[in-house]
């Protein structure tokens, strides 16, 4: 059984809707800018891909929560369900949840209540939702949430589930990554030999998932989502289990490597992730000629953390609907492991994409891969 995506919403540094984000990606626009709210003198890295919505007085709590409500609102409206009043389960994938709000409380005494720590309180107030879940599952969180949502629908427990992701930048995570990265990146450059590491982005994304056949209109179909864990290292990726996640996704979706037209890379721009991911994909798609188109969005949006997998998925959906696959911004000298890949770089390509694979890997060794099919 499969599930249909019938509504989408998204916000990132490069756009306030999925269409706007896709358009910006297609013309190679990036949301990279100097740090907006942090005291840059205390960091080595000076750039991020932030949403520019803070007041002039400084940073404020609750931004990730606010964007989450915004994109769920948009997705429900897009799906024609906004006024239905129904209490759909809402599954939210995040890396930071409201850790930024905790930081602002601890260091600046900005207001905080314990209910702010998870998104359920805001979702109950805004949408009357009771069956809400905050999964703080690092950078595979939103694809994990998607997989869990498909399980809920396929088991017959639900007909409709809202899946979302959101994250806002935190000093602790931005700073700690800055501390450990050997080189100081001034931009996030997936798959490029000159890449120097990841930089954070901000954003939120939501999709409405429905049992197949419930609606006449569907934007795309989720064929399957895999999830596993390296159980190996706290932060470094492991090729073997990542390959396992990719193959498991193909099996669940009942597709072969040759059926995949487009891969949305996790492409976080780190030395380890990009070389590991490229090596795994080279192996998986070895017999597929000419092989799928491959692109990555993080050089335009930054690494939007928990929501990044679902955001890449929404971009894939738009690529399938518009026939335009966006380029990977800033990719000029691809790594050797990517030799033979059909990378979209320099300019976007017009392509007939039916089936897309979306990769998401995170700290704690979490991996999730989704297979999505377009609709015409």
């Amino acid at each position: 059984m499969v599930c249909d995506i019938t509504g989408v919403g998204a916000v990132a540094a490069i756009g306030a809707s999925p269409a706007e984000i896709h358009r910006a990606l297609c013309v190679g626009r990036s949301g990279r800018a100097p740090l907006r709210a942090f005291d840059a003198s205390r960091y080595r890295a000076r750039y991020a891909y932030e949403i520019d919505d803070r007041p002039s007085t400084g940073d404020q709590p609750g931004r990730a929560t606010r964007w989450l409500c915004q994109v769920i609102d948009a997705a429900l409206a897009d799906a024609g369900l906004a006024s239905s009043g129904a209490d759909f389960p809402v599954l939210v994938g995040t890396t930071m949840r409201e850790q930024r709000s905790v930081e602002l409380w601890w260091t600046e005494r900005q207001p905080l209540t314990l209910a702010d720590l998870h998104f359920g309180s805001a979702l109950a107030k805004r949408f009357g939702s009771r069956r809400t879940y905050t999964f703080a599952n690092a950078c595979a969180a939103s694809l994990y949430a998607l997989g869990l949502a498909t399980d809920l629908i396929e088991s017959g427990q639900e007909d409709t589930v809202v899946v979302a992701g959101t994250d806002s930048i935190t000093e602790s995570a931005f700073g700690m990554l800055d501390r450990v990265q050997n080189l100081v990146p001034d931009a996030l450059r997936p798959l490029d030999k000159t890449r120097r590491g990841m930089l954070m982005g901000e954003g939120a994304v939501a999709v409405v998932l429905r049992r197949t056949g419930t609606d006449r209109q569907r934007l795309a179909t989720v064929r399957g989502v895999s999830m596993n864990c390296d159980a190996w290292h706290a932060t470094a990726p492991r090729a073997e289990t990542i390959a396992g996640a990719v193959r498991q996704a193909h099996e669940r979706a009942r597709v072969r490597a040759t059926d995949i037209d487009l891969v949305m890379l996790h492409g976080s721009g780190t030395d380890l992730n990009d070389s590991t991911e490229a090596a795994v994909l080279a192996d998986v798609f070895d017999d597929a000629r000419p092989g799928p188109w491959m692109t990555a969005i993080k050089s335009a949006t930054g690494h939007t953390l928990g929501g990044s997998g679902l955001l890449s998925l929404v971009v894939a959906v738009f690529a399938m609907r518009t026939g335009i696959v966006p380029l990977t911004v800033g990719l000029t000298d691809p790594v050797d492991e990517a030799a033979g890949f059909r990378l979209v770089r320099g300019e976007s390509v017009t392509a007939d994409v039916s089936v897309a694979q979306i990769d998401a890997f995170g700290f704690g060794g979490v991996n999730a891969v989704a297979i999505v099919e377009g609709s015409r």
Partner: protein
Amino acid sequence: MRTVVVTGAGLAVPGMVGIQDLVPPGPARSGGFDPDIALCGRRMRHKDRASRFALGAVEPSLRDAGLCDGAALAGAATVVSTNFGNLDSVCSFAATIRSGSVVDLSPVGLPHTSSNCTAGWVAIEFGLSGPSLTVCNGATGGLDALFWAGNLIGAGRAEVAVVVGVEPHTDAVAALHAIDGAESWLDGAVAVVLESAEHAQDRGRRARAELAGYWRAAEVSEVLRPARAALAEPIGRYLADQQTGLADADDLTARLGRCSGALGVLQCAAAVAWLDRGNTTPVLAVSGGTSGEQADGEAVAALLLTPGGQSAERAA
């Protein structure tokens, strides 16, 4: 839906030895888990307090379930429920940067910027390479985690799931609890092992309890109604706090303080301990509702547990 059972449970709670200490009147003897000793050692190094507690609970739970070798645990899922878990690291790192710069940070703290660090450490230590899920869902988180672990097994994504509830005590955490005036809180962890009934049977392992239902709604009455109607026999024991208005309910928070994300998993372990004593009636765990950790009317969750092996008997 596949039947999901509990085959093991373990604690890392100061003063307690095992899950029987969760049943009133509490620990029969002095001693029990001592964090000052048990949270030290080589394998605890470079891990935050919550993660160390979690390791201390998972180990006895796996021993209790008879799952001690790597092959049996490959593909097992990890589900952790915590709300305060890594917040001490978040506060500490932010303060360090503000009083100096990123250069003053110790790189070993990197994993603890992410709330799923505990799940990561548990998976690494015990080789759990199935799905890894961290639930940060307020006061209902523990019961929610059990629901999702059951779903992972039900969907065939794992045959075994280790479910952990953990909340640490640190200075930052104490300050967070003080926001709404809480006076005592858990500093510890609990772990239960869930399995598909077939997998437990194939291993020749006794099912100690069975997950028989889960509900989530705005108020207590909205979960009690369906929970009571779920089985022909009446619920024999409730695990809940006084706000639920259930007169004879066992309130773990009265003994342990605020348990937050760990509460539901503690309730499950307490239910298993009660059933282990030969009790045979269904047990209902309820958490959430009015609490400083949730918006008013946000949600109440309930999990129904029956003695292990009942569904097989009912089917026969």
